[in-house]
């Protein structure tokens, strides 16, 4: 067990994946000598050279498109999109090409491409640097989308994503990059070194986890909002409300089973994400809970998310984002039933 930041854990995870499989290569803007604008690839260019840590031309569609071609020859490209808001020039390549090639080829062509997206807000950045576009990818079949909330998960899941034969959007909560936590490096290494490692790893990264047990309310979060949910649980607990926190970890597939198990016990669910609420990830979860746990619910499922407005200037982001007060407000509301 070692103490690491989440950024450090991803860095170590990338290194381990590159050591394990020489077909793994990194692509992106400024990921080489600079080590990426968040330094997540720090040191890798020096150790693996510019052929495995490629600074690409400034064109996101080009990055994803050429990565597809490289994956067709057995490479496992791991792309860094510099910021969430800059993934959209690649949207066509991701949704019409990357997502569909396996299907179109009747399974003959696998595209194990990972797209790392530092996402979500809270770091005082300028426009386009704080967005949460995950729902825009989860709706498209053929893609997986996951997001770690702890250094341990970051370390494990980046490697599982790379080992997975499917394309994976890997959403990194950038505001959590510098949070520290203990990381056990051995378990995932053993898992992925085994023969069925890719399958086991893919299954594991697709499952949510109960981050805190509770009995009155289920609070669902992932990535950037897990810490907030745990704080809310703490505060509510002090007020006598027992809150269970589910860290989804995977947005596609959505591990609704874990949530529904919890919802059936608590009968009250609040979903917290930074993405805008309207047509956001919480909508799908709420709909599924209704479909599968309707008669167990004491209260309507509530959502706490970003508003239906562009991400505002950073001076307003604290109020735009779900914050402790808003989460507690929602917990209070479901507890009135």
């Amino acid at each position: 067990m070692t103490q690491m930041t989440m950024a450090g854990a991803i860095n170590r995870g990338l290194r381990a994946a590159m050591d394990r499989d020489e077909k793994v290569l990194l692509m992106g803007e400024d990921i080489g000598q600079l080590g990426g604008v968040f330094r997540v690839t720090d040191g890798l260019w020096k150790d693996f050279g510019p052929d495995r840590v490629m600074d690409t031309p400034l064109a996101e569609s080009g990055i994803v498109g050429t990565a597809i071609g490289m994956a067709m020859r057995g490479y496992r490209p791991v792309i860094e999109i510099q910021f969430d808001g800059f993934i959209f020039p690649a949207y066509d390549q991701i949704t019409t090409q990357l997502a569909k090639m396996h299907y179109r080829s009747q399974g003959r062509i696998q595209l194990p491409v990972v797209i790392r997206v530092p996402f979500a807000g809270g770091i005082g950045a300028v426009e386009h640097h704080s967005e949460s576009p995950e729902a825009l990818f989860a709706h498209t079949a053929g893609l997986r989308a996951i997001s770690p909330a702890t250094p341990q998960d970051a370390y494990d899941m980046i490697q599982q994503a790379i080992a997975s034969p499917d394309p994976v959007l890997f959403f990194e909560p950038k505001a959590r990059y510098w949070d520290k936590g203990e990381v056990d490096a051995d378990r995932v290494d053993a898992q992925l070194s085994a023969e069925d490692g890719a399958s086991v790893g893919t299954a594991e990264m697709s499952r949510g986890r109960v981050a805190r047990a509770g009995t009155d309310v289920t609070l669902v979060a992932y990535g950037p909002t897990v810490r907030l949910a745990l704080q809310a649980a703490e505060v509510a607990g002090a007020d006598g409300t027992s809150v269970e926190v589910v860290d989804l970890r995977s947005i596609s597939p959505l591990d609704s089973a874990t949530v529904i198990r919890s919802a059936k016990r608590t009968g009250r669910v609040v979903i917290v994400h930074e993405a805008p609420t309207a047509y956001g990830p919480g909508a799908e979860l709420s709909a599924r809970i209704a479909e599968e746990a309707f008669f167990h619910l004491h209260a309507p499922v509530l959502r706490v998310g970003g508003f239906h407005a562009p991400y505002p200037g950073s001076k307003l982001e604290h109020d735009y984002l779900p914050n402790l007060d808003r989460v507690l407000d929602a917990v209070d509301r479901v507890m009135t039933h």
Partner: protein
Amino acid sequence: MDALGPQTDDDLVTLLTRTGERVEHPEFSRYAEDLDAAALRRMWHDMTVVRAFDNEATSLQRQGELGLWVQSLGQEAAQIGSGHAMNGNDFVFPSYREHGVAHTRGVDLPEILRIFRGLQHGAWDAEAHRFHLYTLVIGAHSLHATGYAMAMDRDGLVGTGDPERDGAVVCYFGDGATSQGDVNEAMVFAAVHDAPIVFFVQNNQFAISEPVTRQSRVPLAQRGAGFGIPSVRVDGNDVIACYAVTRWALERARSGGGPVLIEAFTYRMGAHTTSDDPTRYRTRADESYWAERDPIARLDAYLSSQGELPDEAREAVAAESKELGRRTRETVRSWDRPAVATMFDHVYAEPHATVEAERAWFERYERSFADQGVHA
């Protein structure tokens, strides 16, 4: 000539004139030197057979056996000429009209129709034929081609000097595609990485109804130079010249010389697809202008003038075309609708909870009808 508008055909590399005379070209003649009568007959054969297949597919569409058909009519020289210049080390990324190239890559032509009958989206084993699936999103595949070429380079399959080893990528797209950001980004990536790739633009004068002047005021070959990619314009209805310039480009790319762009100046003699009605946007006069430049006719004229197209050859190809037509009809009609639940197959390589749940629901749901005897 008005049919061409500002994009003249003055500077095209030509080795066989429209009346079927061979001419020399200072740079490219030598790349056609190995084409003896037998080789040219082979090209004539391929062009003829592909055209016969193309026409058969058109009538199958008219009969309702296919949802759509995309003709390659008129572009046989560009496709067969370039296709013959490749070898087994090369890898092709077609657009959706490259039936001629498919044929040179060993794809059994009727197989292509699986797509157009609505059975599936990709119809052959791309790796086995070293011929990627068709891509319908204009220009998107140009980036895949470039990435594939970059990967060949990494894999040490370029510039070793070993002809058994060295290969390159050929990427086909149309005049319309040159306007897409992706195609231009492909040129950026290819140039910067010196990728072994030949961008083969079939300028067939139209993107559906839009003349090429809606895409560019200057010849498309000029585009390459802007990215530092050597470029050449070739008479796309001259199969010998198409062969020669592609061979030149491939030798260059395979030996590590980097990307090349070829503009093959040709004409879409048919409609854009069977859904299209070209009478709305082009004149009979233009069509006749180009009919006189039919790529098969001119090779036919040349071979005939040399006494190299004996009646037996014509009869053999006619018989083969007829047989291919019959086989195509039969094959297509024999294809059943796939089992419905196959729509859940291959969405992912590993199980995905949503797909599994929906598949399970669907199977239960289907069974409920079977139980009720409502339908199978």
